[in-house]
């Protein structure tokens, strides 16, 4: 049934599907791990039970989401080989070591301390337990560091030479890691994670506030979440602007697609607010635009010239409509986050933070906004890199494994079916947990205290070393 389809397109669809699903989970757990570390620190410092209850409440959500992130992440680390073997052979010497560092410095740290964080409170004492929570939080950030270094290198590749067999050979690791787009992509993505978490936590709190549950736990988490959004949303918009300017410098074609600029504008380019890009006809239909605003944003001058897609061959164009729309979804949601942050600040100053029903309704509606914005931003940057895997150097069509379309088509269908069943169930369980109000004496992931520890050293320890 897949013979008629293009194996490369199927492989791309499979990668897009699996990475989008995967990215939802770490974008939540990066923020949530830090939030849990803050809650536990607040509990240790102030001794207030409310922080411990909130910690245990969100720890249960964390354990579910983290588990889903792990299993969907393993798929990614093998998919480079199964579906993108030529890419792996050529770019592996550069990208592979960065991912190996991610495993060595981040994944083991997270996984090693996760067990203690989830189940070890009664076994190791408060201080060591906090160390475990911190280790998990630091692990999630280190993971973001390495994987975004690898991704950014694919966007703005530097610091390598190309061997006769087409393999990328690392020349300067410092340049490879701190490539031109990395210092912008890393803070933008981490801030996105923090915003995503704050929006999700805020929405859960708003749900309970709207149902008349105004207990201390609900109030504390609503206040913390709204405070985070008030501070982070404007910073994120600034970071995004800087990231955009960096993209204009190093990947101008991507910005042309984001802006929908098929034509060059020698004396000031308009900002297209809405339109339907038509790649075939090379124009934007039903366009609503503000004259010269794009030049003002990108060049800080109304009459600054901006080149359009007409200056590059069509073979270099990314799919314009996808990039154009995903970018607008991201920016639109970003502006709504700014509004939520400002409104909640107003409510806080007016002492109405826990009473303003319409603020709570907006906070609830914005619960999924972080996830949508993260995926939209990811689509913008990844689809905007097309038709290349390593920008300007290795084409996507020349990166793919020599597989038959039926093989890739079958696996794509299998991934779709399994992901919807498994992660559908997981998201359902997460929502069930969120539907319960955090209360005094909140149980952790371990409902019953563990039994007294024996004194025999774990034999698996010596077994592990014996290997």
């Amino acid at each position, binding site marked *: 049934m897949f013979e008629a389809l293009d194996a490369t397109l199927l492989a791309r669809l499979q990668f897009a599907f699996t990475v989008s699903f995967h990215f939802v989970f770490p974008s939540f757990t990066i923020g949530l791990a830090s939030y849990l570390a803050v809650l536990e620190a607040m509990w240790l410092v102030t001794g207030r039970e409310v922080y411990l209850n909130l910690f245990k409440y969100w720890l249960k959500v964390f354990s579910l989401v983290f588990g889903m992130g792990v299993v969907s992440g393993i798929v990614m680390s093998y998919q480079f*080989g199964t579906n993108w*073997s030529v890419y792996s052979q050529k770019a592996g010497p550069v990208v592979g070591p960065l991912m*190996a560092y991610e495993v060595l410095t981040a994944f083991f740290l997270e996984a090693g301390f996760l067990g203690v964080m989830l*189940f070890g409170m009664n076994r190791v004492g408060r201080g060591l337990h906090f160390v475990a929570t911190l280790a998990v939080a630091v692990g999630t950030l280190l993971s973001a560091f390495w994987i975004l270094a690898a991704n950014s290198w694919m966007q703005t590749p530097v610091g390598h030479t190309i061997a006769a067999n087409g393999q990328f050979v690392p020349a300067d690791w410092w340049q490879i890691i701190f490539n031109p787009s990395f210092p912008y992509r890393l803070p933008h993505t981490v801030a996105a994670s923090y915003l995503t978490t704050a929006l999700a936590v805020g929405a859960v709190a708003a749900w309970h506030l709207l149902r008349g549950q105004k207990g201390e736990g609900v109030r504390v988490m609503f206040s913390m979440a709204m405070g985070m959004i008030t501070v982070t949303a404007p910073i994120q918009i600034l970071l995004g602007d800087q990231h955009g300017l960096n993209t204009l410098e190093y990947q101008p074609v991507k910005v042309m697609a984001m802006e929908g600029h098929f034509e060059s504008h020698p004396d000031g380019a308009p900002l297209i607010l809405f339109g339907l890009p038509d790649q075939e006809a090379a124009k934007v239909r039903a366009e609503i635009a503000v004259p010269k605003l794009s030049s003002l944003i990108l060049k800080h001058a109304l009459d600054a010239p901006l080149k359009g897609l007409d200056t590059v061959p069509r073979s270099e164009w990314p799919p314009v409509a996808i990039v154009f729309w995903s970018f607008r979804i991201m920016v639109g949601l970003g502006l709504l986050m700014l509004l939520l942050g400002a409104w909640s600040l107003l409510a806080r100053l007016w002492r109405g933070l826990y009473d303003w029903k319409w603020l709570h309704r907006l906070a609830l509606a914005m619960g999924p906004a972080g996830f949508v914005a993260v995926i939209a931003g990811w689509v913008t940057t990844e689809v905007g890199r097309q038709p290349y895997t390593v920008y300007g150097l290795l084409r996507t069509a020349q990166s793919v494994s020599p597989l038959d379309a039926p093989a890739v088509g079958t696996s794509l269908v299998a991934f779709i079916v399994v992901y919807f069943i498994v992660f559908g169930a997981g998201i359902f369980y997460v929502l069930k947990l969120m539907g319960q109000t955090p209360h005094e004496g909140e149980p952790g992931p371990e409902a019953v205290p563990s039994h007294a520890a024996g004194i025999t050293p774990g034999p698996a320890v010596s077994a592990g070393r014996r*290997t």
Partner: protein
Amino acid sequence: MTIAFDLPIVWAFIITFAIFAYVVMDGFDLGTGILFPFFDAGQERDRAINSIAPVWDGNETWLVLGGGGLMAAFPAAYGIILSALYTPIIAMLLALIFRGVAFEFRWRNPRHRKYWDTAFALGSTVAALAQGITLGGLLQGIAVRDNAYAGGWWDWLSPFSLLVGVSLVAGYALLGATWLIMKSEGSLRDHCQRLALRLGIATIAGMAAVSAATPFLSNDYATRWFAWPQVLFTAQVPLLVAIASIAFFFALRFRHDHWPFLIALALFALGLAGLGVSLYPYVVPRAVTIWDAAAPSASLQFMLVGAAIMVPIILAYTGYAYWVFRGKTGHEGYH
């Protein structure tokens, strides 16, 4: 054959270590899953899964290091092997999803528990089978042309690869049973004690069958094992397997807590030694050597610094995590 102690060799050892660490550590997790249908739905299953819940994620990370390390250190082998064994690899990934989420999902709703327990058992079994088939598919050889896979998507399927798959399921189940002998008491321990005897026989039979079939795959394997005077060294492997097997049945008979698991680990180590004899210095048999597949030395050096610093630290805190959850797992569990 001369042994040049160079970077690709060092990395071949590191990745072999990572794969072995994965096989034995996730081996007892997957084995516990494979045996799940044999345990009573209440306390036995809860205790069994609680004994691995705090450590399975760390165990599975070795699989990511094996895969990621292979991509980084031997990118050509990574690309060729994974696209050649596409079907079993994808099956393994999907199975590991069901296995991994079941740890948390089974506690969320008692009415759904039987479904997630089935997912846990099936996911573990299919993952083990797929890993064995992957190994068998690699051993029987992969069609390579111009440094790329040149076969179809069902080439891996053969009686031999299925034999390796089934043997690995038995081997993992043995690791699981002996792990639980060590970590549990009462009815679960007794149950595993009985299972371990049958699984020990099955695993050793599987090892013997795979060993007997391997020399028929190609002349090369036969020469490696039976040529004089090499045979003096290679013969030690089956000899040690025989000694370990006898020791295993004695350890079981005397109802020892730790020895059955440790001897099962030794059997896996000997299996790995046997694979080393068959494969070295190829990563893809008779097609791609360690040196053909190796990444440029700039990549290998950069990673070696990280591995030299991080692997001992990882082993230390992994050891700590095991130590925190040492001893027998009680009925009250972590949930």
